[in-house]
């Protein structure tokens, strides 16, 4: 662990019942980085994120968030999260974009307090930041998959997190919007100074935008610069994926 790291996992293992999913993982996230977390389906990426978010407790090892042991960490609004499932919400739910984004402030505002004009302004700002200002009062169910994903990012941004974790946010988003989506992430990382951890299957695209790539399949097979990842031999890659893969970098 160095002093730049805001998240650090030390010797983490996790099993569901008897199935070992994560095996002695050491993993750090440096402030200001943009980490693309890749790996095969079932490789344990979502599990790793759930451990960082405190949804699951590790069987062994320790986690620290912003230089505090996770058990003592209280400042959860520093971490924004867009779940793999956020797009599977009930499409008929009659909530406007504004209402959905406002839920990102609920916990920050606290019990027995109400939204002020200032809160409302920051909700609108977050919506603007993801380029959805035309749709503030539109029902979320009427938007496209890519637009909905932007709304969920706005929800996670509204509490001004320092770290944003996104679990496969581009699944079900069309190619054109995936590109715009990466540009948005790039902007958040470079210009807003938000540290990003992005789980994705778009290996080709993420290596273009991320500052680091990590490849997880039960153990951490690679963690380093995108350039070095692209230099990995197909032998090394197939070890990580458990079967042979061809790394294709395609233009989205």
């Amino acid at each position, binding site marked *: 662990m160095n002093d730049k790291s805001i998240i650090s996992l030390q010797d983490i293992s996790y099993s569901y019942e008897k199935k070992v999913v994560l095996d002695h993982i050491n993993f750090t996230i440096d402030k200001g980085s943009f980490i693309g977390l890749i790996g095969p389906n079932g490789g344990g990426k979502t599990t790793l994120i759930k451990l960082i978010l405190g949804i699951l407790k590790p069987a062994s090892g320790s986690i620290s968030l912003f230089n505090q042991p996770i058990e003592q960490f209280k400042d959860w609004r520093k971490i924004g999260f867009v779940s793999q499932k956020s797009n599977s919400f009930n499409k008929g*739910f009659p909530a406007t974009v504004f209402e959905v984004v406002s839920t990102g402030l609920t916990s920050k505002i606290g019990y027995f307090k109400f939204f002020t004009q200032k809160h409302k302004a920051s909700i609108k700002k977050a919506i603007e930041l993801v380029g959805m200002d035309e749709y503030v009062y539109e029902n979320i169910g009427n938007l496209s998959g890519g637009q909905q994903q932007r709304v969920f990012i706005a929800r996670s941004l509204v509490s001004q997190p320092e770290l944003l974790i996104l679990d496969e946010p581009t699944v079900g988003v069309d190619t054109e919007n995936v590109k715009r989506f990466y540009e948005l992430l790039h902007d958040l990382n470079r210009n807003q100074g938000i540290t990003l951890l992005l789980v994705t299957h778009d290996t080709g695209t993420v290596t273009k935008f991320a500052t680091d790539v990590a490849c997880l399949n039960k153990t951490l097979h690679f963690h380093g610069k995108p350039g070095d990842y692209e230099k990995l031999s197909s032998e090394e890659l197939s070890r990580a994926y458990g079967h042979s893969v061809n790394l294709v970098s395609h233009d989205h």
Partner: protein
Amino acid sequence: MIADLIQFDFLRNTFLTGILIGIIAPLLGTFIVVRRLSLIADGLSHVTLAGIAFGLFLEKKFTFILLPPLYSGLAFSVLGSIFIEKLRSVYKSYQEIAIPIILSGGVGLSVIFIALADGFNTELMNFLFGSASAVSQGDFITILAISILVVLIIYLFYKELFTLSFDEEYASVSGIHSKQIHLLFIILTALVIAASIQIVGVLLVSALMTLPVAASMRIAKGFKQMMFLSIAFGELAVMIGLTSGYYLNIPPGGTIVVVAILILLITIGMKKLRIRKA
């Protein structure tokens, strides 16, 4: 009816109670529908019936009134709601199994108490299908207190309830006490069901919670708008249903639900028309 309203206290109580449940039933119903808990409301209403049957049984066996049916119904309903939550946490991946358990339990207990109280009587009929003449001064005051409590708690916890309803996982991750808030909500639901039963009856109470929401859901922009629209529709159904039930000498539960269904059909028709025009 206006003249009768002024003349008869009990009728005035009934009408005022109708106004109150026309607000609180659709208010909670909004959250119940979007969280897909409609069947839980149905289960709870049958537990409330068991409570009411228990109260009627006590009334009959002991000449002095130990526990008025409204209160025994309230007690059963609240205990039932806590029991449902227990069941739902035991059967995590089959949460809906709580519903048949609680529903059959409620009906089973009701049958036992009804038999012990020597069978059906008109009072029980009133509780099944609702009544335009059953509300006493004491019951009205209790229901008024429940209504104030419900509106106050929804007002105070609106943002947490909405966050939880939209995305339970996100609510938990962001540090909201989802479990406690959910329990509070289910207990409120139990209170509202018990309070509504005198007017709409056990068998139709969940309809008053869900039909106005089903109608407003089709035309509302956003959750808050849907909530207020649901209350407006619910209130309309209660007013028209109660008045016509009174004049036609039909249990108001029936007329209220029929009006609510008409409103639903009209909104469906309106939406179709709008789509065709566009």
